């Protein structure tokens, strides 16, 4: 059974040389910020690793995460590592459907109870269970049931990690993140819309190598990939520091590749590996192709005040507020000034001069 082969055997079967495999181990180890001495350990652990059972649950999502992970990288080693896990349930990819598919999920859960990984993409609607169902089972029920025997849960994509676009205002389906419903299992958030393929393979590699979940940041994301902001690792950063900005998408600054901060780039507040790992086998990333970062790996990025509005600008119409404020201030100022004037006049009228007689009278007493 393919399920009982080691990872190296599976890869060799698929024509991956040991050299390519070690190269993958070295690049993954460096991406995860592991010291070079750890590369043999990663390689040896992966060679021995048995294919872990993975149950992939897709809820309120657009399949972009699955596309990102399976399609764009399918010829790479990362793609094959992904193939080398035992993906026992993934209703977009699996051939089975309906009750047969659900039976596969239940069987995988029973066979690997306590050891399987659950990967979730998509948010979970809570306003009405009928908003999203699979084989008549609501997303919420399926998640709670599947999570019971999981070793860990990987929330792939911003929808599963933080609620994502379904969670955007006014959130008609009452969409929530996995971590809002599951609190007793380790959850790794691999956010992004979609997340970078190498990040998910890196998280899997870490799990296979060490048998633990990687170090996570405050938002539950692996620090190795989400430890630095896009801004800090951006190749356009020197232009920001020099004060050289593109003012529009077709001006001289844009053509010269200057900083996109003024065009609304969310790089300074976004943590992800786009600027280093890049996309499409390391070809490029949004800023390199001339578009500001949308901040898609951060919670509520959709409600972040506009993709093309710079971070430092207010979200309300402050110019109008200023005009109304000044008008109200002028009216109040004139009213108060009139009152003050009246008080001054009254004080002047009430003023009684002190005469010498008054003073002498006072002296005599």
């Amino acid at each position, binding site marked *: 059974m393919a399920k009982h082969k080691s990872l190296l055997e599976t890869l060799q079967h698929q024509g991956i040389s040991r050299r390519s495999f070690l190269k993958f181990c070295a690049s993954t180890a460096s991406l995860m910020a592991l010291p070079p001495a750890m590369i043999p350990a990663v390689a040896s652990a992966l060679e021995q690793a048995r294919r872990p059972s993975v149950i992939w649950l897709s809820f309120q999502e657009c399949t972009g995460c699955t596309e990102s992970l399976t399609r764009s990288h399918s010829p790479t080693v990362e793609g094959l590592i992904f193939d080398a896990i035992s993906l026992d349930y993934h209703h977009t990819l699996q051939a089975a459907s309906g009750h047969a598919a659900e039976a596969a999920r239940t069987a995988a859960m029973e066979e690997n109870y306590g050891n399987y990984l659950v990967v979730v993409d998509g948010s979970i609607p809570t306003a009405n269970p009928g908003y999203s169902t699979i084989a008549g089972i609501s997303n919420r029920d399926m998640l709670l049931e599947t999570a019971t025997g999981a070793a860990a849960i990987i929330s792939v994509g911003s929808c599963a990690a933080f609620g994502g676009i379904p969670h955007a205002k006014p959130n008609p389906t009452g969409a929530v993140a996995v971590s809002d419903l599951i609190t007793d299992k380790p959850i790794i958030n691999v956010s992004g819309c979609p997340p970078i393929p190498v990040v998910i393979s890196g998280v899997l590699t870490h799990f296979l190598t060490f048998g633990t979940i990687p170090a996570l940041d405050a938002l539950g994301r692996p620090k190795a990939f989400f430890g630095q902001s896009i801004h800090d690792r951006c190749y356009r950063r020197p232009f920001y520091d020099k004060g050289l900005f593109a003012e529009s998408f077709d001006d001289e600054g844009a053509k010269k590749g200057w900083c996109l901060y003024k065009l609304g780039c969310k790089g300074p*507040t976004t943590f992800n590996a786009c600027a280093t790992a890049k996309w499409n086998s390391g070809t490029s990333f949004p800023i390199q192709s001339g578009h500001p970062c949308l901040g898609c790996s951060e919670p509520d990025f959709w409600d972040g005040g506009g993709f093309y509005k710079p971070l430092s600008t207010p979200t309300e119409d402050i110019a109008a507020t200023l005009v109304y404020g000044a008008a*109200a201030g002028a009216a109040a100022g004139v009213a108060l000034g009139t009152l003050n004037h009246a008080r001054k006049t009254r004080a002047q009228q009430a003023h009684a001069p002190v005469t010498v007689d008054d003073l002498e009278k006072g002296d005599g007493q």
Partner: protein
Amino acid sequence: MNETEFLMWVRGPAFQIATIVFVVGVVVRVLEILLLGRKGNLAEARGSATAGGLRTILTRMWPDRGTLQRSTFTVVTGYVFHIGLFVTIFLSAPHILLIRDVFGVGWASLPTTIIDATTVVTIITLLAVLVYRLTNPVQRFLSGFQDYFVWLVTILPLVTGYLAFHRIGMTPPMLLAIHILSVELLMVSFPFTKLMHAFTLFMARWYNGAIAGYRGVRS
């Protein structure tokens, strides 16, 4: 409220509230002073009140020699932190974007390294000013709660801005939100404290200069 919502609130409704308090407060206070009025001067003019007023507004930009010699520390630190505040507020790229967003006009920004260095110098100067205020017996005697409060709301945006730029201690959205909130605290305190001197100082200089100019003497 998560940190994105907090940042949105700070950039949106909170900034609006702060702007209203700031504008209404400043306009009311300035109008109150102006509408108080002055009795007409019946004496014959010996010079131009307008010229005197304008001249004094300009000449008081520089300290006279006596003041400089008597209070060198106060004068020098005063200049340093006021220029520092001007540079950090009006010549930093994100701030110019805010100004352009509101008023429709903008100008070139300084490199971040210069803004960064200026921020550090301004913070150190403001700390020195506080130490001097606390250690100098006369200054300490003259200082009240408001003086320390005004010092705090002035230094806070500088410190939070520095932390936000270097991302120290918290997540960037939180740091940015706290920085903007500290500016909003400055804005709502502005009309009700000595910070009003930013507006009244020119009126006061004008008034002094105009009186002297009318009498044909230099103020």
